[in-house]
């Protein structure tokens, strides 16, 4: 067992536990985005940062990847953490302003104004889909290409994958693209239909043909029967 202090409270947890899990155990909320139970820790969105250490050595680390250490002092909601978290959220909001998940997080963190230029990308490269596909579905159909601002996500050569079983797991775990529905325009990733409150899947009635795993639709919450 390893004993550490989170926000002044002492807690003993098993070796290998992450700071996130330890904090959740004590009931301290930490927002997460790229983290998902059942998938390997990833540490990309940086929303879950917490402050460790003291004095000039204090620093921010991603709680979803950082393992507990004996005697560590952790602050999950210091001014520094909250400021950093807020700005990371603003950056995420700037890249993906149409994501409901990010909007909700932003609103929960009292972000009322957008300082950054908006991008309208449909992916925040959180990698949940890639890990879902590889770790839970064992398909390895999608992955990352390129680097830096050009880093992107897709199937090899952007062609129809021969190993994809169309389980939909990737879309299911995606925090950014609940709006992604490729039925009407397969060549376009986002149809935007749900955003316009005209869900094409329900209106056009071919719910069954699509074998949509999302029933009810995670975007518009309308189910096939209704």
């Amino acid at each position, binding site marked *: 067992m390893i004993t550490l202090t989170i926000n002044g409270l002492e807690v003993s947890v098993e070796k290998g536990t992450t700071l996130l899990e330890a904090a959740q155990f004590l009931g301290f909320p930490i927002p997460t985005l790229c983290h998902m139970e059942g998938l390997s*820790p*990833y*540490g*990309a*969105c*940086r*929303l879950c*940062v917490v402050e460790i250490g003291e004095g000039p050595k204090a*620093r*921010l680390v*991603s709680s979803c*990847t*950082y*393992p507990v250490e004996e005697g560590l002092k952790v602050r999950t909601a210091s001014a*520094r953490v909250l*400021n*950093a978290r807020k*700005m*990371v959220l603003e*950056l*995420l909001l*700037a*890249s993906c302003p149409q994501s409901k998940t990010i909007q909700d997080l932003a609103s929960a963190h009292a972000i009322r104004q957008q*300082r*950054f*230029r908006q*991008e309208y990308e449909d992916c*925040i*490269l959180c990698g949940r889909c890639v890990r879902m596909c*590889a770790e839970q579905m064992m398909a*390895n*159909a*999608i*992955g*990352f*290409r*390129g*680097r*830096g*601002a*050009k*880093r992107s996500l897709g*199937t*090899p*050569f952007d062609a129809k994958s021969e*190993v994809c079983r169309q389980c939909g797991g990737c879309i299911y775990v995606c925090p950014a693209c609940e709006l992604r529905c490729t039925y009407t325009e397969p060549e376009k990733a986002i149809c935007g239909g749900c955003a316009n409150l005209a869900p094409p899947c329900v209106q056009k009635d071919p719910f069954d043909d699509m074998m949509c795993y999302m029933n009810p639709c995670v975007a518009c919450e309308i189910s096939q029967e209704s």
Partner: protein
Amino acid sequence: MSQSLQDTVQQICRDHQNDRGRLMDIVTGVQAKFGYVNQQAIDLIAKSVNAPRVDVESVVSFYAFFSPTPKGKVTIRLCNDIIDRMHGSARSAQAFFDDLGIGFGETTADGMISLESVPCIGLSDQAPAALINDVPVTCLTSDSAHDIVAELKTHMDPQKLVKSFGDGKNSDPLIRSMVRNNIRQPGPIIFSPCVRGEAIKKALSISPAEVIRAIKTARLRGRGGAGFPTGIKWEFCRAAEGDRKYVLCNADEGEPGTFKDRVLLTERADRVFAGMTIAGYALGAEEGILYLRGEYAYLRTYLEDVLTKRRGDGLLGKDILGKKGFNFDIRIQMGAGAYICGEETSLISSCEGLRGDPKNRPPFPAQKGYLGYPSVVNNVETFCCVTKILELGPASFNEHGSAGSSGTKLLSIAGDCTTPGVFEVDFGITLGEVLKLAGAENAIAVQVGGPSGQLVSPKDYGRKICFDDLATGGSIMTFGPGRDVLKIAQCFMEFFIEESCGYCTPCRVGNVLLKERLEQIAAGRGQPSDLDYLQDLGETIKTTSRCGLGQTSPNPILSTLKNFREVYEKLVRPCEDGLLPTFDIHAAIGQAKRITGRESVVFK
């Protein structure tokens, strides 16, 4: 499917035992053979090494030297670093554009020559420089660029462009390069003469724990930039549980303006390998890897030869120098154009045949590194120091340097100065003294530690070069009167944006926004509050990024904001009309005007 492609690719895979972990070498081999790694090749590789196709594509698309589409037989890679720009690389570029009829990123219609613009290739002391396939060409002018194209068009053999060789080993039959060493000031430790095999012999005469103690007594700190105490790192690794241990030498030397490792690998390769061997003994490792940046491929054959000779002389291999049971060997792993692979966990990813994305820390490499085994990653110069410490004893090493930073340090100095090159100095020397050595006393600004370091102004020239004051992995870039500090910062931000791996949000998204705002300010469209914006965003990127690249990437802006604030202040102006200068109202209401078919009453 082309049969020859299939046969060759499969052969290359077999040459590497169809080992997925050797993906870098396999892809490098295919790229070298065909000039590209296309879909078919990726498919074939994936099948041969039994990896998902997406993993292979992911690797190919990560590294700058791999290309999914055909490149010319010859690729000219012109360095776009700030130093090269200051020395007129634009004129050479123009000559290439004119003679080839193509721009950067393009290939001539006959498929013969490609032109690319790349970050620092480790030749800032001989700028402007370019790599023509593997062959470095230095001190380019408009005329020499014209000549190069004319010659290439006749023989297409880059090696034939080398008319005279540089000094020292650069003329070795296995290197044959025009690169000059420019060793301006050899010092008492790193460049001093050394008896081959002596250090290893001394190390083997004491116990591994005593070797580590010697390194600790010498108070050696890593020369790659971060300055972590080497002895402690080794101790962690030695104590870590693992059936095997690995010694990795970081010869990625990607920090713009650094070129001292290039010179060490050319002139002191034996000393580097001896240091790695000593580390192998101290840690109980049997295998070492030298991670050599793709830009230094021209040194590879030579280095392989040095390794072969060492094996022949009993300095590598089984029972080294007769010590029963001490086996150690070294292989060279080529990089392929990615600055991030100098970060130690990325370097490990790359050695494992993966994308160069850094890994989450902890666990640190000393606990869980290459292939999951405890590993030590050290800089080329660090290993040179190790050899010297074992040969001469820690005391003679400690004689040099300052309290927290013992020994000597190699500096790579380039830019506006009379004698650019490599200088071995004692730690604790002031920046002003350094500038005098290189003939750059009139510098108005000095970038210490490369883009990830800081740009300092003359008021800091009295500060000391050491880990506790002005730290540097070796890069010192000097800027003379008339240079524009915002241009410098802009150039460095471009570098980080290009070289970020794109994994985490702050570094991927934030740096682009930083650079945009900086450009707006430089163009006179900034207002005073933008300086706070830069500061806030920069600090958040620093504190929340996942690896060292992101954690230092805002430094060009943060250090100029601190040391050259007046430059910014002169450019920004409060908005008079109540509109943000960065906001273009006419563009914003353009569509509304078109739809309604009338002008705005307020914004004419």
